């Protein structure tokens, strides 16, 4: 009897506690706009699953706001023009939250279109969560009130990477090799800028910009790197451009440490493993062997999809939205956007904060190293028997960079 009363009381209390919030039980629909077909489809498909998985695991009862999340994919075929069509379709279907990440060109297009839409359609505002487009312009000269970036931008990654390289005495001559488009050029530019401040003695002994996705054989570049006498390589390359470079380096026997951005992205680890051991570092806001809740989620994701969960921005994204909705006590994008500004939530590595001045998430950064799995770091990336082991974790202030954003707030 006593027990029954207690449970009834508990139930009643829970109902009351939950009933306080007006938004409770509502569903927040998020439109995912990224390539779901074409050459980069494997990455887009993985990230769509990641968003849906995070929405499923962190929404509903587990959400701070008590709301459910639903993520629906829209294929933008990787093009800014198609992104605008997808955005329009999503808005027409009633989506008030959109997310995108692959390609800053598409991100800039969406950000601009969202700003225009919100200006012209009061009461139907849309919030844009950018989870992976890293062009610093998005939170600087082209910043917008409705755009929120969950990834760390290139300038932040370079800040963190150079802070790590500063303490590597054997690095004295660096070779830069990048894809010849905005991202690759920015990697080169921000690296030169940051390393000159932190290690003026480090020389840039060579710099190459090659066409994206055109180079089949990287051995001529490797010969050039060797000729230059470099003892470290920095590259923002991804996909086949990264794996072929690593293969060519392995083939020539030139064992140089490589500092990269995107070695963990779908497909690359498999090719890296085929190329054998190599000293490859990755700078990112997470690592493959994260302990705690996100580690458990990664394992569950792998079991479910036989794929890797590496887009942790989805984890922060859902938690930030939950936090903002709880704070705003509404799922109305206007109130949620206001609540997101300056919001701090608990993440998988300490706390993260959505900086108010430019809507850039301030978060911890990691340097991880490619190695065979061992007892300490058992997570086998893409079932290759290799993993990215964390070497260094850096607090958010280390990677934080100033912004030139002059945010125009509505009203």
């Amino acid at each position, binding site marked *: 009897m006593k027990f029954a009363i207690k449970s009834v009381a508990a139930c009643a209390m829970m109902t009351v506690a939950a009933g306080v919030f007006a938004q409770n039980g509502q569903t927040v629909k998020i439109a995912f706009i990224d390539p779901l077909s074409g*050459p980069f*489809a*494997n990455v887009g*498909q993985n990230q769509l699953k990641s968003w849906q998985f995070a929405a499923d695991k962190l929404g509903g009862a587990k959400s701070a706001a008590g709301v459910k999340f639903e993520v629906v994919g829209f294929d933008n075929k990787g093009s800014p023009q198609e992104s605008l069509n997808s955005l329009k379709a999503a808005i027409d279907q009633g989506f008030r939250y959109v997310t995108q990440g692959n390609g800053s060109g598409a991100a800039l297009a969406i950000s601009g279109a969202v700003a225009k839409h919100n200006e012209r359609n009061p009461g139907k505002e849309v919030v844009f969560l950018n989870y992976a487009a890293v062009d610093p312009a998005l939170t600087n000269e082209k910043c917008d009130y409705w755009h929120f970036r969950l990834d760390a931008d290139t300038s932040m990654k370079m800040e963190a990477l150079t802070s790590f390289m500063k303490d590597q005495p054997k690095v004295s001559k660096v070779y830069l090799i990048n894809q*010849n488009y905005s991202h690759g050029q920015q990697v080169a530019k921000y690296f030169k800028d940051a390393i000159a401040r932190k290690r003026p003695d480090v020389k840039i002994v060579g710099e*190459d*910009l*090659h*066409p994206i*996705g*055109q*180079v*089949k*054989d990287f*051995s*001529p*570049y490797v*010969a*050039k790197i*060797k*000729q230059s006498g470099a003892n470290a390589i920095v590259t923002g390359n991804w996909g*086949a451009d990264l*794996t*072929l470079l690593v*293969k060519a380096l392995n*083939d*020539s*026997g*030139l064992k140089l440490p490589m500092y990269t951005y995107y070695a963990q992205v*779908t*497909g690359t680890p*498999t*090719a890296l*493993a*085929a190329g*054998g051991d190599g000293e490859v570092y990755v700078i990112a806001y997470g690592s493959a062997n994260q302990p705690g809740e996100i580690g458990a989620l990664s394992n569950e994701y792998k079991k479910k999809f036989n794929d890797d969960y590496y887009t942790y921005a989805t984890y922060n994204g859902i938690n930030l939205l939950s936090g903002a909705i709880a704070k705003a006590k509404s799922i109305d994008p206007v109130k949620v956007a206001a609540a997101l500004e300056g919001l701090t939530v608990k993440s998988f590595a300490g706390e993260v904060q959505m900086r108010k001045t430019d809507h850039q998430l301030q978060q911890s950064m990691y340097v991880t190293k490619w190695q065979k799995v061992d007892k300490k770091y058992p997570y086998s990336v*893409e079932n*290759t028997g290799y993993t990215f082991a964390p070497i260094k974790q850096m607090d958010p202030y280390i990677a934080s960079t100033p912004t030139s954003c002059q945010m125009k707030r509505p009203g």
Partner: protein
Amino acid sequence: MEFFAISLLNGVSYGLLLFMLSSGLTLIFSMMGVLNFAHASFYMLGAYFSYTLTGWLGFWAALVLAPVGVGIFGALFERYVLRRVHQYGHVAELLITFGMSYIMLELVQLVWGRSSVDYRVPAALDGPLFTLYGTQFPMYRAFMMAVALSMLAALWLLLTRSRVGMVIQAALTHPHMVEALGHNVPRVFMLVFGGGCALAGLAGVIGGNAFVTEPGMAAAVGGIIFVVVVVGGMGSLGGAFLASLLIGVLQTFAVAVDVSIQSALHSVGMSVTTETFGYALLKLKVSQVAPILPYLLLVLMLIFRPKGLLGTRED
């Protein structure tokens, strides 16, 4: 000297890979007049077949069986699809191979997924062959070169010194006469097409693990093999060989040249700054445009010598 030697070696080995890729295409074109747009897709198919067969039977069995499988697939395609549209002329043939390349891409993605597969170089061929000035030359590259050269020799012998080759050559110029002599000309064409596809498949077996086996691999080489065939002279095996080496060496050395128009003007005393008209173009270094050079060569060749280096076809 050191850099020159290594670059030359790199250039030649890359050129030989290009030859391996384009020999089947030029064979089919010279014999049948069909410009096979799906050629690079057969290359991809070879890589994927070989990946699967390597898992079952090992690399050496795959080296033989995968090209055979691709060849059979190509022969069936010729027999049941290409032959039907043959009567409508070359444009229809070209379009159907174009469509085929898309179908094959989607099929590969359905069967093997959209991501790259873990297709590795066999352990016996993994590792350096020799070390030149401190740079290793991988054994697998040497293997690749040897296969390409033996492919050239075998093809040449087959076409010029064997009975089958003579029938094929005769069927090209005098099909009715050959038919009257009791040879099945359509079957000869089917064999030629299958053989050309098998060559692409062989290139896939060897190129797939040397580079990356992924659905984008066909598109990545699709353009360059057409350059080889056009520059070499449509339908000339020797021309394709020459063009492959030329392009391989050209591209490799261009990567090493860090000269731009800006620096050239600078050395003669003219200064170019960000204010100068066309700065974006002037500051481009040769190394930056290296991978585009073959396409420039293609355009120049078509303007100044449309039949290619060793081409004989006038039409």
